[in-house]
């Protein structure tokens, strides 16, 4: 009996169990202290759809063998650039999804190019991807801080009224703010369902899943799972790693556009610095490891992690009005799960 329990426990993973228990516990607390359930549920669903694509960006990178993409900020910067250019050139007609479609299309070439260059870099440093990725992300974000000040954007909604450079947050009210959320959106007993947002997220998941079933997707999976076997079967491992990195960067770019859209603002300067970590933590919570991932991990992980954070915020504020308990909780859960995954990697490379 104990053996069986142990087996299932191992399969499910202790941290996942703790986080699930925590989530359920906090949900019950929220109901007990009388927080509006319908509002909370709407929020959880919105955050789930809003954050999911960023977590989805981890799938191709883990599958191609480069590990969780800690350099997600590269994709994020591309997405931000696409959105900024869209607003700058006023490509916000309803036919272009009020700018959403044009933002995605403009960010694509940036994402492909930078993902390609970054993928080649990753091939040179096999075995230390996560660390180098983290600092590549940090470097790009801090470099783009100079960019946000110096790039010749002129649109008055983006620039500081006085002084140089772009604003720290750029409002999307007049362009594609919340457009996806409103598509076919409806309320059931006070719970708002942002149908368009969810459909887009599931659609992206479906595309990634379809890709992983295709010939090149299977090749990429083999190259990531067992490079030696892949070489023996005539698969170009390095090429597949580059493809995985490009895909991850593209999804990252789309992810930040959807995130900003649902959030209502583009966040520039230091905002993208730590964005990779919650995304990595989400897939790990969902059951992925640094070398294996499934779409279901993204869905479960994003729901658990974002749900936990969303519900914890008002609950924590009720219990401790001052001090940011939910932020502390986020730090512990997020980094704890990454540490746990690192210890499971097995020593030595």
């Amino acid at each position, binding site marked *: 009996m104990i053996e069986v329990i142990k087996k299932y426990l191992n399969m499910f993973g202790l941290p996942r169990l703790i986080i699930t228990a925590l989530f359920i516990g906090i949900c019950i607390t929220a109901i007990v202290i009388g927080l509006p359930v319908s509002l909370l549920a709407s929020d959880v669903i919105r955050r789930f759809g809003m954050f999911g694509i960023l977590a989805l960006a981890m799938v191709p990178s883990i599958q191609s063998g480069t590990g969780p993409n800690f350099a997600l900020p590269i994709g994020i910067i591309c997405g931000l650039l696409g959105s900024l250019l869209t607003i700058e050139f006023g490509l916000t007609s309803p036919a272009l999804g009020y700018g959403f479609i044009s933002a995605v299309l403009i960010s694509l070439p940036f994402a492909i190019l930078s993902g390609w260059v970054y993928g080649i870099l990753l091939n040179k440093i096999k075995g230390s991807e996560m*660390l180098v990725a983290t600092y590549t992300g940090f*470097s790009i974000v801090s470099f783009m801080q100079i960019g946000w000040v110096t790039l010749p954007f002129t649109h008055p909604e983006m620039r500081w009224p006085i002084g*140089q450079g772009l604003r720290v947050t750029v409002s999307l009210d007049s362009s594609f703010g919340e457009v996806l959320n409103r598509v076919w959106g409806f309320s059931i007993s006070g719970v708002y369902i942002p149908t368009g947002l969810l459909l887009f997220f599931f659609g992206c998941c479906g595309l990634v899943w379809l890709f992983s079933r295709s010939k090149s997707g299977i090749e990429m999976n083999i190259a990531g799972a067992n490079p030696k076997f892949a070489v023996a079967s005539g698969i170009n491992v390095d090429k597949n790693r580059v493809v995985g990195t490009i895909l991850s960067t593209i999804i990252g770019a789309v992810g930040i556009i959807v995130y900003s859209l649902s959030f209502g603002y583009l966040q520039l300067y230091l905002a993208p610095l730590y964005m990779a970590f919650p995304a990595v933590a989400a897939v790990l919570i969902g059951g992925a490891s640094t070398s294996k991932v499934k779409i279901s991990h993204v869905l479960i992980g994003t729901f658990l992690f974002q749900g936990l954070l969303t519900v914890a915020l008002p609950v924590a504020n009720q219990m*401790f009005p*001052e*001090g940011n308990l939910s932020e502390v909780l986020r*730090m512990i859960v997020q980094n704890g799960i990454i540490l746990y995954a690192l*210890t499971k990697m097995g020593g030595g490379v």
Partner: protein
Amino acid sequence: MAGVNEVKTTKTNKTNTSNSIKKFLFDSSVPLLFIIICLAGVYFSELPLLFIMNTLLKRVTRNSFMVLSLIIPVIAGLGLNFGIVIGAMAGQFAIIAVTHFKISGFPGFMMCILLATPIAIIFGIFIAILLNRTKGQEMISSMIAGFFANGVYQFILLFLVGTLIPLRNPDLVLSRGIGIRNTIDLTTATGLKYSLDNVLWYPLFYVLAGIAALVIIVICIDYYLKRKKIPESIDNFKFITQLIITAAILAVSLYVIMTGSILINVKLPIITTLFIAALWWFNVSIMKTKMGQDFRTVGHDMEIAKISGVDVDRTRTIAMIISTVFAAWGQIIFLQNIGTLSTYGSHVSIATFSIAAILLGGASVTKATSGQAILGVILFHTLFIVSPKAGNNLFGDAQIGEFFRAFVSYGVIGVALGLHAWNKRVQAIRRRLDA
């Protein structure tokens, strides 16, 4: 200033002079590049030299100890220890306790050291357990461990103080009775501000002149003795560079003293400097002991170390403990100079800045000396001081200088880590081809 470093890093090979110069230029291309950037920054910032010297000295003396704590893990093969953040937290716990008990001045400082040490040892053991389970990924693990520990640290100080930990001190605890304040003032009468620095101040250039004169005498005697006994071990290039650099330092110091320039007012906190010198000496002399040899063996190759009977995990644990303890002390030295403890912020960027500094000094993931650490701190802080003003003068925006500085700190770490990983991979491929 740079002389101190070159004395340490120039290799004592019996090669001819031009080869030595080439090797020196190649080995120290990073510090040389940043020396040029710093000099350009100093020029364009148009800041008065006295201001730069004063600020720089202050920053270098308060930061060097922390950066020196990075050396031993590098030698022991653990890479750059991002976990010094956790050591810094131990130091901050101690500072909060000592501030609560109102022990001021030098005794207060020593009390901090005394309290921080056992906490840091325990933290060091925890980090070592983690890193021994994540061999090959030590740096990312120590970095994430730092983030994780920061969460736990905030949880303890924000929510356990006043609830589980009974602390009722209105100077420390928030008005609601739970949680430590965001900033703790150390400048009060019973505070720790300058508790170490204020023991003794002395004009910098007197100290420099004295040391330079002493060094010249020592290396001349050394050269003379070697020439008599073992002439083949003489390295003319090294001797001449050492002599020129120390002579230059002596000349500049004497010039400042003779002309009675205002630079004479630049004062050095002697005891703090002695602390830094002691850690430097410790880092050098531990390498001559059995322990130091174990560090080196483990750092070189864990398999070989295991075969030759070294307890790898234990050696790595000791290296981490040493580093964490010194990081805790380093944070105390840092904060007693700053004078305010930002409870939830003082430690956060310590690892990034210290590691960027040591890399600017020419260290790498597998090789680091104390000289590189000090040179790196000097360069990093020069950049820190001049870049906002230089950015303003060059681009009309102080922000750009600051962003550039942030980019350099992250970028230099990224490039160094990338180069190291690339190098490791190239070597692995070569080994495979040889086998």
